């Protein structure tokens, strides 16, 4: 194994063969046994057939990025062998059907037909893989029970039997494979992907209303919330389209419910007028955009970081906004909480920008200390507001006391037109100027609260890898390898890309011999933004826009070129 972190398992097959099921079960068994994981899902925009993959990189130490080289390939169809055998390390194995492989030494030919019916092939493969890497059989059996549950005892029983048979067969017939090192103290961790962490972060922050129109790869945020809505007193509403979704969320937020929408680039294109409305009416709104490659329908199920320019500029007119770009599952959780707090306190639109890779990437994370985390809610009704209430009262900070309609004796008037302090439409141009200034003044508060980018490495490195969002993990691991090779490398990762405070990072950029921007788009959008905001040019770029996530190998190979 050349993977410094551990072991890379790739499951490939057609949609409908149950590869995601066994991928999730294997990942969960690994997490429960104390291992860290990084899952990458590659699927096609179809329900049956095609070629899909579910890869799990796992090991006893914390992992933050996928890698490309494969140690254990689970081929549920023949195409997987031809497509991925080139990725196999020397010493790697391919778990496949006995009848497909002949006598190759790197094949683990499983006699699926002898061991069970076709529908159980995925569970049999799971058992063989689990036994090969040394996962305890009882952990996998427990995971199976949790998945099939009490709903379907006969299905659970046949899957348990298949798993047991696969363990027996592997013990007797399969070649030896290096086992994962045992973890003595597994710790208490949960398995969660980016979308699930955003959903949980939102609930923990006090989300009360979520509206959406289904769109890959954002939909699982809606599904995670819908599953819990009733028990938590949250409304999840599927709207007639994204325009309806964003306007509903604004209506609910106006009526006092902390609100969020989630979509991908194409759906967000429809929501854009709502961003402007949130800003003009000063109604808090959290907007999640899980990116996928565009333009137009693009590659619906793949990943990219190409909507930064779009999110940065979306919405007509001038107004402040904040954009968070989480790089890990933990950041998905905590930055979503921060987005809610900020949306409520600055009364406007706040973005969370992720992508398909992070949205679908399961990881092992420590349980969040929910009992210690405060809820955010609409600013409570200030007691000393005189009549008549002015929703847009001019203040030094640009923030006006926010009341909720129907909750006090005051009347709340909000308007998408330019308006007076009391919320009524106006064409008084002197008022117009004051209101623009008021809204823009809120930028000062956003700047004060802006998160610093995270720098890792020695001061004044030879190479500085600069990145944002989900590419953080790949950059960290690439930098570690470069440092091992003797090249002094630092990393600068942005988890908030707007607003930018140049003082937070200018000296770091200037102190490096060479700065390389690493981004999942074709133009180096963030590098251009840095140039625009600071004047600092970054000409060297590692870019990826073939629909796959950036990996450490990809960065290292690009730097060699």
């Amino acid at each position, binding site marked *: 194994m050349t993977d410094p972190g551990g072991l890379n398992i790739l499951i490939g097959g057609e949609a409908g063969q149950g590869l995601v099921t066994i991928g999730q079960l294997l990942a969960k068994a690994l*997490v*429960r046994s104390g291992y860290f994981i990084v899952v990458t899902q590659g699927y096609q925009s179809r329900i049956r057939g095609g070629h899909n993959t579910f890869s799990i990189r796992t090991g006893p130490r914390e992992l933050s990025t996928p890698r490309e080289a494969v140690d254990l390939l689970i081929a549920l169809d023949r195409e997987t062998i031809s497509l991925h055998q080139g990725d196999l390390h020397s010493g790697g194995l391919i778990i496949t059907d006995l009848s497909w492989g002949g006598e190759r030494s790197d094949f683990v030919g499983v006699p699926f037909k002898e061991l069970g019916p076709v529908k159980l092939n995925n569970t049999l493969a799971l058992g063989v893989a689990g036994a090969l890497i040394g996962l305890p059989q009882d952990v996998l059996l427990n995971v199976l029970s949790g998945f099939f549950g009490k709903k379907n005892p006969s299905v659970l029983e046949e899957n348990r039997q298949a798993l047991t048979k696969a363990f027996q067969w592997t013990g007797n017939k399969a070649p030896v494979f290096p086992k994962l090192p045992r973890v003595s103290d597994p710790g*208490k*961790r*949960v*398995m969660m992907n980016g979308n*699930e962490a955003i959903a*949980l972060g939102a609930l923990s922050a006090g989300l*009360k*209303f979520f*509206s959406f129109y289904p769109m890959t790869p954002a939909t699982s945020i809606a599904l995670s919330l819908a599953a*819990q*809505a*009733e*028990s*938590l*007193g949250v*409304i999840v*509403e599927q*709207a*007639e*389209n994204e*325009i*309806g*979704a964003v*306007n*509903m969320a*604004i*209506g*609910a937020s*106006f*009526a*006092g*419910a902390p*609100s969020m929408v989630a979509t991908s680039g194409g759906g967000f294109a429809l929501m854009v*007028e*709502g961003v402007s*409305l949130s800003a003009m*009416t000063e109604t808090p709104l959290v907007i999640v955009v899980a990116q996928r490659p565009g333009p137009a329908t693009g590659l619906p199920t793949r990943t990219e970081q190409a909507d930064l320019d779009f999110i940065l500029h979306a919405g007509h007119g001038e107004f402040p906004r904040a954009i968070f770009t989480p790089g890990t599952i933990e950041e998905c959780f905590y930055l979503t909480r921060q987005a809610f707090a900020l949306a409520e306190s600055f009364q406007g639109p706040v973005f969370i920008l992720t992508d398909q890779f992070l949205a679908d990437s399961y990881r092992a994370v420590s*349980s*969040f200390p*929910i*009992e210690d985390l405060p*809820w955010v*809610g609409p600013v409570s009704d200030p007691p000393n507001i005189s009549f008549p209430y002015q929703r847009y009262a001019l203040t030094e900070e640009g923030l006006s006391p926010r009341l909720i*309609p*129907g*909750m*006090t*004796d*005051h*009347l*709340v*008037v909000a*308007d*998408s*037109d330019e308006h007076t302090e009391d*919320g*009524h*439409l106006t064409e008084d141009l002197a008022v117009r100027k004051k209101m623009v200034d008021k809204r823009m003044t809120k930028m000062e508060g956003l700047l004060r609260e802006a998160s610093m980018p995270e720098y890792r490495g020695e001061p004044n490195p030879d190479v500085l890898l600069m990145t944002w969002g989900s590419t953080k993990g790949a950059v960290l691991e690439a930098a570690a390898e470069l440092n091992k090779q003797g090249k002094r490398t630092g990393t600068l990762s942005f988890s908030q890309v707007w607003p930018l405070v140049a003082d937070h990072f200018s000296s770091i950029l200037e102190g490096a011999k060479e700065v390389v921007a690493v981004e999942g788009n074709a133009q180096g959008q963030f590098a251009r933004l840095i140039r625009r905001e600071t004047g600092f040019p970054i000409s060297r770029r590692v870019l990826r826009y073939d629909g796959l996530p950036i990996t450490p190998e990809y960065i290292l190979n690009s730097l060699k070129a």
Partner: protein
Amino acid sequence: MVSLEDFGSYETAWCPGCGNFSILQSVKQALVDLQLKPQELLFVSGIGQAAKAPHYLRANVFNGLHGRSLPVATGAKLANPGLTVVVESGDGCNYGEGGNHFLAAIRRNIDLTLLVHNNQIYGLTKGQASPTTAAGQVTKAQPSGVASDPFNPLAVAVAMKAGFVARGFSGMPEHLTTLIGKAVRHKGFALVDILQPCVSFNKVNTSAWYKKRCYELPAGYNPSDWAEAMKTSMEWGERIPLGIIYENNRPVYGDHFPQVKQKPLIAMKPDQEQLIRIMNSYA
């Protein structure tokens, strides 16, 4: 006691003689008749001359974007079922730009009242055809006459079994006041399509044109007879029926959310123990 004075009196941006004045008066009178306080009311509107109406009375107001008043109102009503929500906007806003939201609101049967000022023309943008402009009518934007057939909002609403479907006329204010009152009282989605002249830009559908044609549905008319209502909703031209065309008691949207029992979401206390259980379910 709530009185007309509670709803205030404001200078407007409307043309003299506009049907909007009489509609505004009917709205205020209906609210007084229902003894609803301004604080209990949320008016949501879009863009257009009709959509300015909520600025001319005292209430909670959200004046949003063109065509989008229904989704904003839906979100607000779900977040606080205690609010009496009235959506007020024109034919272009609701039937054109917001057409899909109109269909969705009927399907949901969300408990709000939709007042559509229907003058069969775009007034604010100065006289282009609206979705309800008659085929053949000449405008500056349609110099050879409107080529599309007009949208029949009442027939669509009845076909979809909307909770409450009515038509009023700004020239018959007492009748209109009664209709608006009944619409606001109706539990579920209530549409009042209000015919009104546009004195500046619609020279065809004038006050006299409507007066000649509009008639009140007779006392024996049964609005719960769907087939009869379908027929009535199609009547247009020489004679135009006014009144409650169709009404039913479909389940109201939101009642299926046990989490909102006539309590605003803002007043619901968070349940941290449940959240911790949810987090542990990911283990």
